[in-house]
């Protein structure tokens, strides 16, 4: 592997002391890299290339032989069985949700960074869900969203009980309910990152803008936004990737019922329940390709805008 290509640099000395230093240098390079590269190869790289190979077989995950079927799995996904790609649509909801989340997180980060009294407490509360166990919060949400559950009770307490809905039973609403659960979980995390970026915006610029009578919106648009644009772009990439690999929230809250299955859930199910590893691998590869294309496009757009 890559290790074999490690060799001494051109300037190895001739006297004894120098070459023993050179030997030591080589021992350290090889010794410190063997384990990390072994782990990287065995648990990340090899599985990735194996996945490409699996995707061109009809393997069932158990039998010793895997028959090569070429691009048959991909043909089935794209041209023959439209139901396989259908869960991909659900990713669009999470994608839309991630825009809402980014907008909310930026809004809250901006107003919190002005040092309103109590802003520390607000920040902590909004961030809290991020540190909690995934299964625990999903079960909490399953109960929160059920008929006559916590959300309906909360609305009644606030005097708007008539707003109650069939949050998870209604097939149109359930997708947004799950998006809400996901925003609930990650909003504070995103807020914190944006908040961190805002700390580096020089305060005297706001002071100067205020003296000139700039409105809050003008201040945001001309001072704040340009200085956090990179971070927002980065978060958009993370959000895109994130919305394609949503698993926990639908899996644990609805179990994928009522049309909430995501593409990655379908792929995992295909592999581990129906034992159609070939097909599942093809689905995974499609996902990887989409992620890579999305990341590349957004990177290009970001660097384009910067120059």
């Amino acid at each position, binding site marked *: 592997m890559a290790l074999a290509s490690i060799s001494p640099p051109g300037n190895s000395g001739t006297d004894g002391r120098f070459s023993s230093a050179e030997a030591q240098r080589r021992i350290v390079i090889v010794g410190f890299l063997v384990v990390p590269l072994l782990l990287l190869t065995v648990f*990340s790289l090899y*599985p990735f290339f194996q996945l490409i190979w699996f995707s061109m077989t009809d393997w069932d995950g158990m039998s010793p032989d895997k028959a090569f079927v070429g691009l048959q799995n991909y043909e089935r996904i794209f041209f023959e069985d439209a139901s396989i790609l259908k869960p991909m649509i659900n990713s669009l909801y999470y994608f839309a949700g991630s825009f809402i989340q980014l907008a909310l997180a930026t809004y809250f980060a901006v107003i919190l960074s002005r040092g309103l009294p109590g802003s520390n407490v607000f920040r902590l509360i909004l961030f809290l869900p991020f*540190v909690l*166990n995934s299964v*625990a919060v999903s079960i909490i949400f399953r109960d929160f969203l059920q008929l006559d559950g916590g959300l309906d009770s909360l609305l009644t307490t606030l005097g708007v009980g008539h707003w109650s809905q069939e949050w998870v039973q209604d097939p149109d609403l359930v997708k947004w309910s799950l998006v809400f659960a996901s925003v609930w979980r990650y909003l504070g995390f995103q807020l914190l990152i944006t908040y961190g970026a805002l700390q580096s915006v020089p305060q005297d610029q706001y002071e100067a803008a205020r003296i000139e009578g700039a409105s809050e919106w003008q201040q945001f648009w001309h001072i704040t936004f340009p200085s956090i644009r990179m971070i927002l772009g980065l978060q958009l990439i993370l959000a895109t990737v994130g919305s394609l690999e949503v698993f926990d929230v639908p899996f644990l809250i609805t179990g994928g019922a009522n049309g909430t299955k995501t593409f990655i859930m379908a792929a995992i199910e295909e592999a581990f329940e129906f034992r159609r590893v070939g097909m599942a691998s093809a689905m995974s590869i499609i996902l990887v390709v989409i992620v890579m294309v999305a990341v590349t496009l957004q990177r290009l757009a970001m660097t384009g805008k910067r120059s």
Partner: protein
Amino acid sequence: MNMPRAFRRMTPIRLAWTLFHYAALLLACLLVISPLLIAFFSSFKTPIEMLRGEKMDLPVDWGNLDNYIAFFTDQKIGLAFYNTMFVLLFALAMTILVGTMAAYVIDRFRFRGRSVILFLYVIVMAVPMITTQISTYEVMQFLGLIGSKWALILLFGGADVVSLYVFIQFLQSINREIDESARIEGASYWQIYWKVILPLLVPAISTIVILRTIYIYNDFILPYLYTPRVEQSTVSILLYRASDMMSASSEAVLMAGIVIVIAPSVIAFFLLQKQIVSGVMRGAVKG
């Protein structure tokens, strides 16, 4: 504090906006807190209260620990916590050792193959971990590690590229002259790593410890795939199995279990809030 003066200086429009911002913040906090509070309240309620009362009602008797006792007796909770700690400690140790060693060599040495190695890490970073689990599972099966905590330790501890990047980035900010002067004083590379670099990396290490602890303690998909039985698995699977087995009538018992699982996180969060907040801010951006 100059806030009161700030308020006084405000024009009516600006004051209205400030009130609007506060209302938005309060609403958001209410939505964040209420599901958690309801779960907490429910864990102290009797079956009758659960059936008849509103979810938002406070429990009648805060001393009612029946649900907690039921969860403790029915579930292998001690074992699940032991497993979680076992996985967490070994995975963290592995992440730190593997990550700092690789980062030290990659940042401080120039050797043939270095750019190839960096390129491999970039590839791995671009491929979402969850997508390759189908074939990683076959590797684990080959190694005979399905159902073993070591499968989790290897994946949590060994396959994390973000940590490596955080370490490399931090190393770049440490002046190389420190290495060189230690070298002149006769220290070996190993001593430089162990006595100079590692202590200087402590802030980066604590960032990674915080981020990885949050991730490992809360993750579901890896334990679900590799250690599906509670006996070998983490608290995530304990709750998952419990929620599968329990009927709707024992919902309050399940809520007690949830409180038990998230209590350590909540307590640690409030005790270490400063470190966690700055750790996330430092680490996440580099991902």
